[in-house]
């Protein structure tokens, strides 16, 4: 028994020693380390290289700070960051979406009101209007780095080869779809498994059919919101029409965005509606479609209330600071640095449009990205993507409904009535 107690004692003592040493080491490291979480883990992400460049620039100018960077794939990231925030174990600075998605963090007081920690002079360098989805109760909780928008990317080579006019109206779009389909080519790329990719199409169709005001009311659940208006019904019918015309790959519901983009980047699919960040991949040095892609505005819908110069997008994502961070000033400084410098680096790489005022040599900007900037300079309206404007539960419901439609499980009438349930 005596020996037994001795052995137990030794085991307990060594456990405490090692445990204590580990905690001490961690405490020491915490003094000069900032944790940064972001998306863009895959090399195919157009934002990855510019972001890593931004991090390196920060490390060079701030040698006393150690950065622990973790990058995760976008869909998996949602779960990861929410779990960490809920467990009060969030990184100091992290990427997140704006709008309704950010609101849940703001309401739970998990993110720092950055405007309280930044000087007016620094804040004034942010482009006007880009903070609207990041400001709650007069305080700014997130800093934007990109002005995103969705456009239709067309492969001019394929359009020329089959003598098809680049569509500006819905009827022209259907004609183009039919011509390509008859030639054995999948007309439009879409990775339905990720669901937000499908929303890229439905958001624009709703915007063209129901118009900006109706969509704005519906996506933000304002008074007067109606998903069963004539415009919304038209949108549902048009989406159904596009699916039935065979515009999308036949296994679209089972492939991810990355998988679905492969044939587009290989020059086998003529049309793709997605965010402006796609431009960087199109124009990458190794891209098979470099120089062949043109960005155009999504076609108008005959009988629709929308304007061809209405754009989906805006400043829909940015960097936040956790309210539980142990180094508030340093974290805010890092956050602002990342937002401003990544804004510039991503723009130079063609992965985004800047949200900070900056002097950039225009001649160095890729022509495709420049053309998108030119298109948006004439924008009449910017509307935040539906699945970002809507909050958590509703956002998921929206993505599920469009997926059910894509899979052919519901009709256009059910589409509208299911959306109407969100408003209850």
């Amino acid at each position: 028994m005596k020996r037994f107690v001795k052995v137990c004692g030794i085991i307990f003592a060594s456990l405490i020693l090692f445990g204590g040493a580990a905690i001490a080491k961690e405490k020491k490291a915490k003094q000069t380390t900032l944790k940064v979480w972001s998306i863009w883990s895959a090399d195919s992400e157009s934002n990855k290289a510019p972001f890593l460049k931004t991090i390196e620039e920060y490390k060079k100018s701030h040698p006393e700070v150690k950065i622990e960077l973790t990058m995760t794939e976008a869909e998996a990231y949602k779960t990861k960051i929410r779990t960490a925030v809920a467990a009060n174990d969030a990184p100091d600075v992290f990427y997140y979406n704006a709008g309704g998605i950010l609101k849940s963090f703001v309401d739970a007081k998990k993110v720092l009101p950055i405007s309280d920690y930044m000087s007016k002079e620094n804040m004034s360098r942010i482009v006007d209007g880009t903070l609207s989805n990041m400001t709650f109760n007069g305080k700014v909780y997130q800093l934007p780095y990109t002005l995103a928008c969705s456009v239709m990317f067309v492969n001019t080579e394929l359009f020329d080869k089959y003598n098809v006019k680049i569509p500006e109206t819905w009827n022209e779009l259907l004609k183009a779809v039919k011509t390509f389909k008859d030639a054995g080519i999948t007309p439009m790329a879409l990775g339905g498994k990720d669901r937000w990719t499908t929303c890229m199409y439905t958001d624009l169709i709703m915007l063209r059919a129901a118009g900006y005001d109706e969509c704005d009311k519906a996506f933000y659940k304002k008074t007067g919101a109606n998903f069963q208006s004539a415009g919304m019904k038209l949108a549902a019918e048009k989406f159904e029409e596009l699916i039935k015309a065979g515009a999308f790959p036949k296994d679209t519901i089972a492939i991810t965005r990355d998988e679905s983009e492969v044939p587009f980047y290989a020059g086998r699919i003529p049309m793709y509606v997605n965010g402006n960040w796609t431009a960087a991949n199109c124009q990458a040095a190794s891209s098979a479609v470099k120089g062949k892609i043109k960005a155009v505005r999504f076609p108008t819908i005959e009988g629709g209330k929308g304007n061809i110069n209405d754009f989906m997008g805006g400043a829909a994502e940015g960097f936040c600071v956790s309210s539980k961070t142990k180094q508030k000033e340093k974290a805010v400084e890092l956050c602002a640095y990342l937002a401003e410098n990544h804004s510039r680096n991503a723009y130079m790489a063609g992965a985004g449009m800047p949200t900070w005022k900056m002097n950039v040599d225009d001649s160095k900007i890729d022509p495709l990205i420049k053309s998108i900037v030119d298109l948006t300079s004439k924008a009449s309206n910017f509307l935040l993507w539906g699945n970002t404007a809507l909050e958590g539960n509703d956002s998921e419901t929206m993505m599920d409904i469009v997926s059910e439609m894509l899979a052919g499980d519901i009709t256009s009438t059910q589409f509208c009535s299911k959306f109407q349930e969100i408003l209850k």
Partner: protein
Amino acid sequence: MDKIFSNKKAVCVFILPALILFIAIVFIPVFMSGYYSLLDWDGIGKGKFIGLQNYKELFFSKNSSFWPAARNSFLYAAVSIFIQLPISLLLALVLANGVKFEGFYRCVFFIPVIISSVVIGQLWMKIYNTDYGLLNTILRKMGLDNCCRMWLGDKNTVLGATFVPMLWQYTGYHMLLMYGAIKGISPEIYEAAKIDGSGSVKTAFKITIPLIRPMLRVCLTFSLIGSLKIFDLVYVLTNGGPAGASEVPATLMYKTIFLRNRYGLGSAMAVFIVIECLLFTVAIQKIFPKDDE
């Protein structure tokens, strides 16, 4: 040996670490989930106590996607029990009877068990791919073009398609358990049976299987519970898609909590899974009582 067992203090001390871990990692979280299931909580802010409303919504709401998910998990359980276990049993009987390279086969069948489910999911995703997947390519080469399907994209085939990797992964595990049990049977019984003129099939049915009944019960329990709570394979292969056709309670719970920010409702699903597994385990104990031999 008896001296150690009768020394109550020693027994307590040795059990204590495992018991503490068990309570901390299993018991307490289950009770916490039970408590959370009574809240309307988004997992981040403050929760509101709403009693059994989450359960009401789970079981009785007409929009609830829970019953299709539960039905899918029962299908997984049925396939596990009625297809996987017989295959494992057959393999175990054949191997235990003595074939050349017995040790090699044992190894090979067990390999899928130790490969991570995520890797298996990725592997089968590529096999099932409509354009370049192995399955469709083989079918095309054999001239069976019209048999080609969007295995993971068509809601008619997706469940069947997900059964295959699941069966493939754990057949070796159950086979090994049964093989071990069979090897534990005294060879004298087999010799007696042989003298009495019993062929190998008759021996298998009348002697081997009855004698390994306790192990069969263990395998049945593991198989049933495992398929009721399956998550990783389904998540990687289809994430419950397309449009919920291959949803199981565990993936639904995951989405409800982390994507829909409805921790309370998700916890209710978790509690359901726990209770369901407990009930089935008790049912198995009752249907196959422990032999007194």
